[in-house]
């Protein structure tokens, strides 16, 4: 019997897939961006079904909030007037791309199925061991103990990226003009 949690998963999964496909398929980049937002939100929901509430929240704030807004902003900035070719051309090229992706998907699916679908231990979702607060606390603890090094490096990374992004926007050109 499928539980309500299952249905929730299917619903969210379907939404994320449909809109994920939308990102890829919509000709207008703005639509793609909007689809991306919805996908991100539904992915946040999926994180929720997995009891990762903190991460779900971060997902909403960082991705659906910040990152996507950034995308939309840039798109607005560009203000693309002229029509552009949306997809790559060439029957063979596209065929190969699709085939490669299909093969990859097929193999991923097959091996995931062979490993996890047949193994009953992975079937039912184990009961959440701790409350979500506790889990978030655990997360914080491991972030600042076990993963302290990575955390610090990430900090450095962000600083560097900040400098870098600013630098990029102020690059001055040489004598050469676009041809």
């Amino acid at each position, binding site marked *: 019997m499928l539980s309500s949690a299952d249905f929730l998963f299917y619903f969210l999964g379907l939404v994320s897939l449909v809109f994920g496909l939308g990102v890829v398929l919509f000709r207008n980049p703005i639509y793609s961006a909007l689809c991306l937002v919805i996908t991100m939100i539904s992915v946040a929901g999926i994180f929720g079904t997995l009891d990762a509430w903190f991460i779900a929240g971060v997902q909403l704030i960082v991705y659906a909030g910040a990152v996507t807004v950034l995308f939309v902003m840039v798109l607005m900035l560009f203000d693309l007037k002229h029509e552009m070719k949306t997809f*790559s051309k060439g029957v063979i*090229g596209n065929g*190969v*791309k699709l*085939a*490669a*992706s299909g093969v*990859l998907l097929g*193999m991923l699916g097959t091996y995931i199925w062979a490993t996890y679908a047949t193994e009953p231990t992975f079937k039912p979702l184990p009961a959440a061991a701790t409350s979500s607060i506790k889990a978030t606390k655990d997360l914080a603890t491991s972030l600042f103990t076990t993963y302290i090094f990575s955390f610090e490096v990430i900090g450095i990374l962000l600083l560097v990226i900040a400098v870098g992004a600013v630098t990029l926007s102020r690059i001055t050109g040489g004598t050469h003009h676009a041809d």
Partner: protein
Amino acid sequence: MMSNQILFAILLLAPFVGFMFNGIRWKSHNATLAGVVATFAVFVSFVCSLLLVSQLFGANAVPSVGTRFFEWMNVGGLQVQAGFVIDHISAIMVLVVTGVGTLIHMFSIGYMSHDERPSKYFAYLNFFLFNMLLLILGENLLLMFVGWEGVGLCSYLLIGFWFTDSEKAAAGMKAFITNRIGDAGFLLGIFTLFFLFGTVNFSEIIARLPAGGIEMGWTGPMTVACLFLFVGATGKSAQIPLYVWLPDAMAGPTPVSALIHAATMVTAGVYMIVRLNPLFLMAPNALHVVAVVGAATAFFAATIGLTQWDIKKILAYSTVSQLGYMFLACGVGAFGAGLFHVMTHAFFKALMFLGSGSVIHAMHEEQDVRKMGGLRKYLPITHATFFIGWLAIIGIPPFAGFFSKDEILWQTASSPLGHKALWVVGVLTAGITSFYMTRLMCLTFWGKSRVPKETHPHEAPPVMWIPLAVLAVLSTVGGWIGIPKVMLGGEDNWLERWFHHVIAPVPEALGHAVHSHALEWAAMGVSLSFAVIMACLAYTFYVSNPSLPGRLAQKFHGTYRLIYNKYFVDEFYFARIINPLIDASKGLWAYVDVNFIDRTTYVLGDVVRGVGSTAKSFQTGNLQQYAMYIAVGLAVTMFLILR
């Protein structure tokens, strides 16, 4: 012994010193000085050899005189001494070579007096003598080979002495290369003998011959060795099929022809066979080959001699023919007779060549006998000496040629190794020889003068005619050491006693010689009378009835052309061997080197470039294409790993 060593050293080095002397001042035009030094050098050698040979005579005679200077080569089992030996065989050769050599050198002083480079000429001539002495005196095959190639080299240089003439240079080259073919065979012979007997020393080889081990087949090692050696001999001694160089070699100065291409060098092949006579007797099949080739050469060369117009060419073919006789002698086991003929031939042929040199000298380098005739009155001494040479070569007793030729013919008929057919060929050749030699005499000295008006023939100076005179004497008396047994009443002649120890008799196993005095007399008579008849015939043709030869040539047009053109042998060689070889070489170069091997490497390079441009063409610059490669690469990698 010490004195012998010094004597040998002087004997060998005297010509070498002469060579160095003249070689260093090769630019000098002083023919007299150059010639006198050169002649003296050879004369010193002659004296030394006389002193050495004298030790073989008398009461306390030794079987051989020898000396060793140093060890030349020592590799593995091959130990070659620079050692020299004079025994009963080499004694005759060394005396002939140095003796006749002295005379020819002397003659050259006059002959080359007006040449541009007399010193160079005498240097070469001395160097030739040095090499010839190495060839004769060397105690082993390798030293003989050194001389063998050395004389070839000198012959090359001397034939091409007037090198600005392309044809003369070509003749020199032809001589060297043809000789090389023979030399290659000689080398193989040396190898075979070395691995058979473990030595290249003549005396040791002969000592190690298996007793009574006569090889009857064709593939036995000794037969093979003998055949290889005989290839060498055909090259050096101008036998079929390698005789073609000798007529061309007449491009050199005439004394050179006399010395090298008549008296000495060309007889080296005979000498070599005689030196190894016990070995050849072990291989009767090889001897048969020698005999047949000898007889064939004698006959064919003689026929060509019938039609030639160049005085030196006639003598050259005669030389080839006479060499054929010598090989015939060796082939039937009459090594002594062969060597005997070498000696007498050296006398009379040198005489005739020098005589022709004198004629050419007198005629201002004219060699065509059609432009001569009646020279007797201009050149009396030359004519007289040439006349003696003529008598000797056509075999009129008591001149030298008679005894040696008769000995050969009788041995051919009587020896167990001989054959009647060979005898017939021999007699026929003797007749033809008689004919063309008489023809030569008639056209040159007798009959009407056809000398162009602007030419004024004159007799040679003494320095040139004295050698002629000496040689004429030798041609007369030289044969008396080998008077046939029948004439001596069954007693061995001097020559036979001389060769007693060094020339083996034909082994019993091969059969017995015919001993019939009557038969011998008869054979002698037949050949003599045939020669005389042919001589008379020739006289009729060319003096009494000069138009007859032309008519005859008209009538037998085809045959005449064939013979006049020397059976087209040179043309055959060019058309069938040399030109195809050159074409093939060009083909090899063009097709194998350039088109195949290089092309293959280019193809490899092209393949690499092709793969490269394919790889390049995948690099389209399109970002998504690159992403696709990543995706495809991932998919394929995963598939391959997980399959």
